[in-house]
Structure formats: structure tokens, C-alpha cells
């Protein structure tokens, strides 16, 4: 996993840990997440970040039931 960042906050969704439950998608106040067509090894369609618009609030992280499926990377704090 990389911590190299484009400088803006962003969610990092780990493909094999995500179960595609969609809680993060529903909870995200900026609506920058969606369930993608990507299917992981377990057969779940995983969540995906639109690529911009994240404010780093970490609401997706706290709504996610999996310990390792989602991280929120923020610069300079």
C-alpha cells in the first residue's frame, strides 16, 4: 500500500477486504463513493472512490464493518 498522495484526502479501499455492503457509499456526505463493477476474489462487488471530492472526514471508515477494508489518507496532519 502506498502513502504517496496526490496531496488531497482520499479513501483507500482494499479490494480483497471489502465486502461490498455499501454502508460507506450510503454514509459518505460528499457522495464520492459507489459500488463498482469490480468483483473481488470473494465475489463481492467492491466500493470505489470517484477519484475526487473526498474531504477526509473518515465517516466511511467508521461506517465500514471490516477492520481493514477502508483507510482514509490525509496529508500534513
Amino acid at each position, binding site marked *: 500500500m502506498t*502513502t504517496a498522495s496526490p496531496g488531497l484526502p482520499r479513501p483507500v479501499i*482494499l479490494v*480483497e*477486504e471489502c*465486502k*461490498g*455492503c*455499501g*454502508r460507506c457509499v*450510503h*454514509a459518505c*456526505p460528499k457522495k464520492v463513493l459507489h459500488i463498482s463493477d469490480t468483483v473481488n476474489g*470473494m465475489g*463481492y462487488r467492491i466500493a470505489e472512490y470517484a477519484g475526487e471530492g473526498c474531504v477526509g472526514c*473518515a*465517516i466511511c*471508515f*467508521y*461506517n*465500514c*464493518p*471490516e*477492520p*481493514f*477494508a477502508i*483507510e*482514509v*489518507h*490525509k*496529508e*500534513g*496532519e
Partner: protein
Amino acid sequence: MIIRSKGFYDEFERKGGRRRTTHYCAGCGHGIIQKLIAEAMVDLGIQDDTVFVSPVGCAAFCYYYLDCGHVAGPHGRAAAVASGLVRAIPDKVVIAYQGDGDLGAIGFNNAFQAANRGDGFAHFFVNNALYAMTGGQLAPTTLPGQKTTTSPYGRDVVNTGEPLKVCEVFNQLDRPVYIERVSVADSKRIKQARKAIRKALEIQKEGKGYAFVEILSPCPTNMRADSVGAAEFVTKEMEGYFPLGVFRDRSDAETACCMEVAPKTVEEIVDADYAGDVIADMPELRERRYKFSGFGGQGILSLGLVIADAASEMGRHVSWFPSYGPEQRGGSASCSVVVSGREIGSPTIDHPDVLVAMNQPSLERFLPTLRQGAVLIYESSVPLNVEVPEGVNVHPFPAARIASENGVAKAANTALLGCMVELGLLDMPEAEIAEALRRSFSAKPKLIDSNMAVFEAAKEYARKELS
């Protein structure tokens, strides 16, 4: 900065699962709650001092996930295990984590009593209104009208009662320090749940007492919904019966509600000197099996105890095994005493060497169990109308009369002891028996002399009439 989970093992060494995912269904509330607990544990610096008691139910595998100490409780018993832990390791933080079937049904009394004692642990109660692991059956917390696999037409409160409101029940008790009901249905509620969980653990860190946090949690699988629908059910339906909020917060009180228990070593509890004794075997000593039987109040159990005490003082292996029942209300009482030169296998006796029977039911019950060579002593005022097995030596003995004549009507048991000594049934010096008899009255010294008189009179009678 990276916001990520803290307090979990790097890999979950669970059979058949992925190394970095839990076994929970997609959208399950357990993962959210455990993330909050793990995070609080790390942030408060108590991770290495925490013991987590996992329940039976979907959360049974917590010990694969949270990086702290663990004990897995039997079904319903997480609170009881936690109660034990706070006594055994009072300086550690103990967490009990239970679902609503585990805590609300089978384990309710354990949880309730722990709360009533104010045992110092954090008690997390995950309420999803049904039994999840076993397939969505009706739980004590199931809502009226809610369909489950065992309430297919909806919960009928006439038949199955109302949803059990555990916070409200516990709030009637004096000892709990903190009681709150929260939810993990959405972001706002998760934020409050996070505060409540941290609070419960802070109370443990400061040793202030019992903290109870009920967490309403979605179960998409058994609520027959997707993660969003299940969360909506929690908010729209469950909160109607289980309102969120702080029921009690006494965490600022000066005095801790938690009991102060000084830990003791095994030696301190059992008396180190005694525990060190080893009873030497005396293989030449024949094992003797005595059965004493009568009605409650005749001193049957005490008679057995005097003999057991004497044998014990002589360093023999002894067991004294009372049979309780309704005897305290006047029913039959009996006890079995085994004296042996070797370690005793079983304290129960199927075929006594000596039967001392003080009433009719005792004769009826135990006389048929005697075998050839066994001895029966019975109160001679009781008619012997039970067939005596072949080869049994029978001694009718007027224990009650001898006791009365010597001024202690209740000392029939002492008279029987004297009879046994005179007949040579005890295989111990008389002085040892007499000493044990005196010891048995150490709390009532006035009775010693009169009982010794009964003892002597009984010996004399036995010498003249029985031998």
C-alpha cells in the same frame, strides 16, 4: 496521516477464512462496534491490560480479531466469566461482549447479578432483536409483530412477552456506574456509540465500576435486508422500543462503586500448612464403609462426622458424604463415611459394612443393601419388619432409651457411637473416638459431660447385652 483500524491483529488466524477479513456478513454491526472498542482500547493505552470475554453467537470469534487478552465464555456466561476475572485480576481491564440471545435469554441472570454487584467491567450488549448465528430466531428483544424464523406470523406478545429492555431493567439497580443505549445504524449514531464505548473503558481504566453499553446493531442477513435497509430497521423500528440515550452516568462520583478485592494466593485461601500435608498410605488397613440413616434432627450427620473426624486426626483417608434432601423438614437423612488406608475412590456406598438405622424408612431402604458379614445396628424401639439378608449380624440397640435415661434425650447418636466402639466396629482406639466426640461439642461445652455419660452407658449396655 492515515486513519485506519487500531487494536486488531495483523492477520486473523481463523480456519477457512481470509487473513484480513472478519467472518461477519456484509453490513453487520459487529465489525463497526469492535473497531470502536479496539480503537478506544489503544487510545486509552490499556490494550496490554485488557481481557476480552467473548460470547457464544456471531461474535464468538472476537479472539481472532482484537489484539488483547481473551477468554471465551460458555453460552450466556460472559458476564459470569467477567465477574470471576475482576476478582482474579482486579488491576486489569475486563470487557464482556454479548449479544441479545446470549445476554438477554440464557445469560440474563448472570448479567443482572453482575450489574447488581457492580462488578468492575465494561459490559457491551449488542442488540439486533434476534438470534443471528442460529438463523434468525425470536429473541427476548424481538419487536412485537417482528417476523423471525420462530415467529413467522410476527411476535405475539401475549404468548412470548414484550421486548426485554435491559438498560431500563439494569437502571433499577444501585451499583452500575454508567448505563447508555446507543446504535451503529448511521454516522451520527456511530459517533455517539464511539463516545459511549470510550466512556465505558475510561471507567474501567479508572477502576470506577460497572459500565453497561447496549448497542443496537443491524443484521442484514436475518433482517432480510441490505445493509442500508437493516440500518433503517434499527433506527425506525427498534428505536421505538429501545430509545437511545444515557440512562445513568455516575462516573464523576468521588467514591468508586466498584468493590475492592485484595487478591489472594491459593495458599492463603486453603491454609498453606494444611495443603502441604500428605496422608501416608496404610495398605494394611481394611477399608470400612459406614452408612448412618435416620430422620432429620436425630444427629445422623453429626454421628458420621465424629467418626470421620477421629479417623482424620489419625491420619487416615476419610470421606464423609451427606445425603441432603427434604431432611431439614423432617424427612430422611443419611450419610456415608468411608475410612481407608488408601486414597478413597468414591465417597458413595452401595453396600455398607456397617449400617446404623434409626427409623423404619432407613431399614427399608438400606437393609436390603447389606451383604454377608455386614453389621446392622438399629434403634430397638423400631420394629424390624424388613427381611434381613443372609449372613448379616443384627444388633437391636435402645439408643433413645439410654440417651433419655442419662438426661440427654437428643443424644441417641452418642449412644450409637458408644455401641459401635464396644462392638469393635470402628478400628480405632476408643480414646480417639472419645476425643472426637468432645471436639464435636467444642461450641457447646455444657453438653460434653452429659454426652460422655451417654457414651459410657451405651458401652456398658452393649458389653452386657450385645457381645
